């Protein structure tokens, strides 16, 4: 059976400007290839670039990921040591004031460290030894 397609926000926005243009667009050009002048095409290209750049900036400055960054970068997301660090965070650290402050500082600094660990295998090894040492101390 024919499934009705969704109408895009842009299509309705165009309709609010000029109905005739939308109808002629549909009638004379392919549904996916809109007719644009060279000047319009150029500004669309610039607009797309700006969108992409802004998307990158926004996700970089806003994204808050509540994973155990350093352990995840060192051992992986599913590793038992990573899981035990998460457990330590939830059961011990989050119950005290000092622990909460430590978590705040950790989440502010660790994404950058995790990126460095991800890129360098030698730092990853050092991090592995350090984390195993800390893991032994806390368990």
């Amino acid at each position, binding site marked *: 059976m024919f499934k009705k397609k969704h109408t895009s926000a842009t299509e*309705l926005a165009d309709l609010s400007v*000029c109905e005739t*243009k939308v109808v002629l667009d549909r009638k004379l050009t392919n549904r996916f290839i809109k007719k644009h002048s060279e000047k319009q095409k150029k500004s669309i290209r610039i607009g797309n670039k700006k969108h992409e750049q802004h998307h990158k900036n926004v996700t970089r400055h806003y994204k808050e990921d509540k994973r155990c960054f350093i352990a995840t970068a060192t051992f992986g997301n599913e590793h038992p040591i990573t899981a035990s660090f998460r457990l330590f965070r939830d059961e011990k650290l989050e119950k005290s004031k000092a622990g909460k402050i430590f978590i705040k500082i950790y989440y502010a600094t660790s994404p950058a460290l995790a990126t460095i660990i991800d890129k360098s295998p030698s730092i990853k090894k050092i991090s592995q030894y350090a984390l195993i040492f800390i893991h032994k101390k806390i368990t």
Partner: protein
Amino acid sequence: MKIIAITIIFITLFSYCVWYILKSNKREWLKKENLPKELIKAKLFMSEKYISCTSPRRLCGFPDQVFAVSKDLIIVDTKSRDSNIVYKKDIVQISVYAVILRKKYKRKRVRDYGYIRIDNYRGISYKKVELLSEDEIINLYDRNEQLKKFNSTANKTNIKPLCKTCVYQKKCFPY
């Protein structure tokens, strides 16, 4: 013991330096962005993500950014144009996003205003706009369907300067 203490101090200092650089980058970006106050403390809910709904009508779209302030959602759409004017077209576009988000995330409340982010040679500015109601969007959708079925004659724009740059200006008259 000494080595461990030195290592811990070194890691702390290094982390602080990285944290400081990242924070100053963010400060610089926020200054350049000229963000409205409520968006500085907001969380990013989604960015450049496809959303759609089937009720009240079959609608879809790619909102540029949606921010969350507690349980409320605020839509931001970027336009790169020379003038700092917000057109009705922009308001319709983010109003459609609002209709979809209201249906998709029923636990969240979509604010009845949004922001148009204009990026041009003058810099970046955010314009606060009131969104259209759901009924107005439904009426627009139904009008579009009517035109698709050729049940109605399409109106021409009232904004005459638009016709000068339109690629259909020669074909428009007899239509």
